């Protein structure tokens, strides 16, 4: 599981670029979408499930690791599934004038 020290600056490079990209993406979002934006980005933070799966999936890992990783999968799944569904439920309600007229 050793990491090539030359990789470390590269990981930081990715981190810094992604932070800057995130700031640029979110800065101009109108305030009316702040709640869905938050719950949507919240769901993305459930990406830690990938870490949980990788931890659980190593050959001959001790039972304690399997248990911890399974718990992590459970909580991350609540975050992911709940986050995306609740965001969709909210966004479904955001309608402009035209759409509303079409339905009535």
């Amino acid at each position, binding site marked *: *599981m*050793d990491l090539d020290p030359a990789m*470390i600056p590269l*990981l930081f490079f990715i*981190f810094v670029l992604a*932070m800057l*990209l*995130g*700031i640029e*993406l*979110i800065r*101009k*979002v*109108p*305030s*009316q*979408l*702040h*709640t*869905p*934006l*938050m*719950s*949507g*980005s*919240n*769901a*993305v933070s*459930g*990406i*830690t*499930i*990938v*870490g*949980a*799966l*990788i*931890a659980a*999936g190593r*050959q001959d890992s001790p039972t*304690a*690791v399997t248990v*911890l990783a*399974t*718990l*992590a999968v*459970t909580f*991350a799944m*609540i*975050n992911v*599934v*709940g*986050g995306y569904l609740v965001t*969709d*439920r*909210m*966004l479904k*309600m*955001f*309608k402009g004038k035209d759409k509303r007229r079409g339905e009535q």
Partner: protein
Amino acid sequence: MNLELVRGICYIAASILFVFGLKMLGSPTTARRGNLVSAIGMLIAVVTALSAMTDIKWAWIIAGAGIGSAIGALAARLVKMTAMPQMVGLFNGFGGLASLLVGFSEFHSRWADADTTQLFTMVAIFLTVLTGGVTFSGSLVAYGKLAGVVTGKPVLYKGRNTVNTAILIAIVASGIFFCAQKLGQVENAETQGVYIALVGIVVLALILGVLSTIGIGGADMPVVICLLNSYSGLAACAAGFVINNNVLIVSGSLVGASGLVLTNIMCKAMNRSLANVLFSGFGSATAAKGAAYEGQARPVSAEDAYLILEAARSVVFVPGYGMAVAQAQHVVRELADMLTENGTEVKYCIHPVAGRMPGHMNVLLAEANVPYELLVEPQDVNPTMKIVDVAVVIGANDVVNPAAREDQSSPLWGMPVVDVDRARTCIVLKRSLNPGFAGVDNPLFFKDNTRMLFGDAKASVARLVSEFKH
């Protein structure tokens, strides 16, 4: 074909989908598709991670993922729109807990294998566990405050900043001790010490999360929710550094950055610094209150309020947390529809920090089928407030407090507010003359052009609607 390469490409694809998903979430017409795009990215990332497992413990994974999905789906379906802030807070906390568990299990497997682990990885494990722990317990307290389980007032005690500093120092000290160890190169007795150090860090992080959130008042919750959102992203990002996985680093920092931007927007909307929000105990009994205002409030009956509204050519509704508590969004829409039929121009002015989370009012009004074009921000309404006939304040208080403009001694001084006092008439729907969550008196109630319509917001608006029907 090289499978590692294919997986790498899949992770990049997932990251790109997250970026585009977030971008599309920035416009009301594409937001729903953006959420779907982001979810597809998540699916790709999960499937790729599954394919990377050398020893797939299906029973465990299916059980964990199944239970998690079921809870998440049920909660998302059943939650009321008014309870959205605490729901988002809770989901957020679970994300933080998951990152904590990932960090801990990574440590455990290295510890058990007496693997050689570099300083870099140890630091990353420390940071994952720390941010994950603070996110989890902090979010639980925020949930408790928003759901009304824990008091919404800031819980303060003497020397709390000293206690917090002491805990922080203890965390840094155990962190340094923890990171200085090289697993696999120390004797057994010492590796026990490392393990204990990490458990200690987890406990301290959980305590820090509770203590740093409990002293923050209900009205400042939009900031706290944003900040915790950011933490949960950073925790996932730190976990990415532990396992050297780019998709975790990219998506974690996207969330971290978005939370920070929102935190900044919220602080600006209150004209306060983040440090002031976190440490001042704003809204507690001991905090500054500003001048007390005296005068005669002018109550108005529903009949008279109806006559004022009926004659108005333009009306601006200013909702606040009180509208959420009273669940009044549907009757408000009904009243607005009747006004529109009557030839009145209706708008809703939403202050960025109205309610308990960013955009809280927008979600409630969307639930009530209000087209989003009618929702405007204070800077769009304030310049023309003088020609607005009636401003109707529904359960908002601090965000319409003219003391922010007029009284330098007020704690709200300098905060951008909705200038409802400049409208020709201002009708305030309120249960009593009590000050708002920030505990600051509101001179608006005593202005000559203000009429107080006392009572529950929902009942009051319903009475206005029935007046219109007659």
